[in-house]
């Protein structure tokens, strides 16, 4: 009789372990998917920039310096190695683009250009996509890390080598945390 109970408990423990393992794998896959989504959006921005520069050139050719800074920042961002270096280069690129759009205010013809308006919308959208993709990565990472560290998951996580994922550092620290909403 006793061995039936022992066997029952063992089977239950095994089922719990399988469930926990699968949950952790799912959450880790979600993290990695979210990370690769950031890269997709960054690539989208690199692709849009040459087009933008060409369009602006036609209307504001003597703003060479700003245009060159954008191109340089883009190339640096593409070439950057390592997470920290890349983040820095991306921030520079964002700054250069903001400057370019601020500059366009002084050229009514440029602002009226339909192609420019379209590019501006696409770039605004891309900037949003990048920050939203990062935000999502941090959200799912927080979920995964919590799952890894809470009991009894942490026992299994240690056994099967589930490592904590790193958060993406955002420019504005207050954006890192989801707002606490209590309605």
């Amino acid at each position, binding site marked *: 009789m006793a061995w039936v109970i022992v066997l029952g408990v063992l089977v239950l423990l095994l089922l719990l372990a399988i469930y926990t393992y699968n949950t952790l794998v799912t959450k880790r896959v*979600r993290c990695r998917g979210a990370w690769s989504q950031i890269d997709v959006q960054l690539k989208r921005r690199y692709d849009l920039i040459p087009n933008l520069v060409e369009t602006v050139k036609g209307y504001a050719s003597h703003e060479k310096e700003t245009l060159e800074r954008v191109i340089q920042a883009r190339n640096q961002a593409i070439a950057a190695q390592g997470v920290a270096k890349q983040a820095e280069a991306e921030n520079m690129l964002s700054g250069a683009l903001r400057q370019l759009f601020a500059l366009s205010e002084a050229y009514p013809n440029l602002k009226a250009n339909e192609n420019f308006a379209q590019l501006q919308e696409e770039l*605004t959208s891309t900037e949003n996509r990048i920050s*939203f993709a990062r*935000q*999502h990565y941090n959200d799912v990472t927080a979920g995964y890390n919590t799952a890894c560290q809470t009991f009894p998951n942490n026992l299994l996580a240690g056994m099967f080598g589930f490592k904590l994922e790193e958060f993406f550092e955002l420019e504005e620290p207050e954006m890192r945390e*989801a707002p*606490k909403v209590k309605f």
Partner: protein
Amino acid sequence: MAGETYHDQIARNKRNSILLIGVFMVLFAGLGLLIGMVWGGGSSRFGIIVAVAAGALAFVLTLLSYYAGPAALLAMSQAHELKREQDPQLFNVVEELCLAGGLPMPRIYIIDDTAMNAFATGRDPRHAAVAITTGLRTRLNRDELQGVMAHELSHVRHYDILYATLMAVMVGVLVMLCDVFLRSMWYGGSRRRSSRGRDQGGGALQIVLLVIALVLAIVAPILAKIIHMALSRQREYLADAGSVELTRNPSGLASALAKLSGDTEVLEVANRATAPLYIIHPIKKFEARATSIFSTHPPIEDRIKRLMALMQ
């Protein structure tokens, strides 16, 4: 944890949807039993037959509203699907938000109406649609549009769309059936009176049943509506909170709501069944007495106040 609240909300919506289907079937069967007994002159056998038929009908209606409800609601609202080329900015805004929430892209519909409103429908995030009126689309800037779309996507993400769509179809059907019954009582009165001479005891029973049936027929739709409304007000607050969770920018939605509250136009394509789906009540006179228990939507000023509190 912000994440926990929305997971709770999803679980609650799925549970409530199943509960709703159960209550709907029981209510249908119960009404069927009573109506059957009244129609059959107190015969319980006829009542049971009608009850089973009504229960089966409720089940078929549930399946129909699950699979075809969203399409029916969109068609009822005269919404037509948009393609990317027709409004790239709207598609960009929704795609961005889908990235933020890790959601699949919903279909986007437009309603040709100058009144300002928007709603979401579907059975799960994979089969979802968001609709916006041309009046609202043209009067919002990018940030406000983002806030409104994030509100609608939160309804999708929270599975409010499943519950609300089932609700809209079922309440509509229930109200309609009770109406049919009440009318049949009106016109069928003389036929029943003539059968009384044949069986005196049956006549007394019949009157009792008639009273119960009448009370039920009147109370059932009211009850359904109260449950419906109490639930959807909470949902609006949660969707506003979910919107901020996606955009991290309460001011966009707050300023959109301020614009919406200034709109006095009635949305002609909306009706009592579809009204709870919209971001603000489409029949504007309801907004004025929004504090009453019969309101499906909380007052806009209150929603803006809560959003402002998030900005500090």
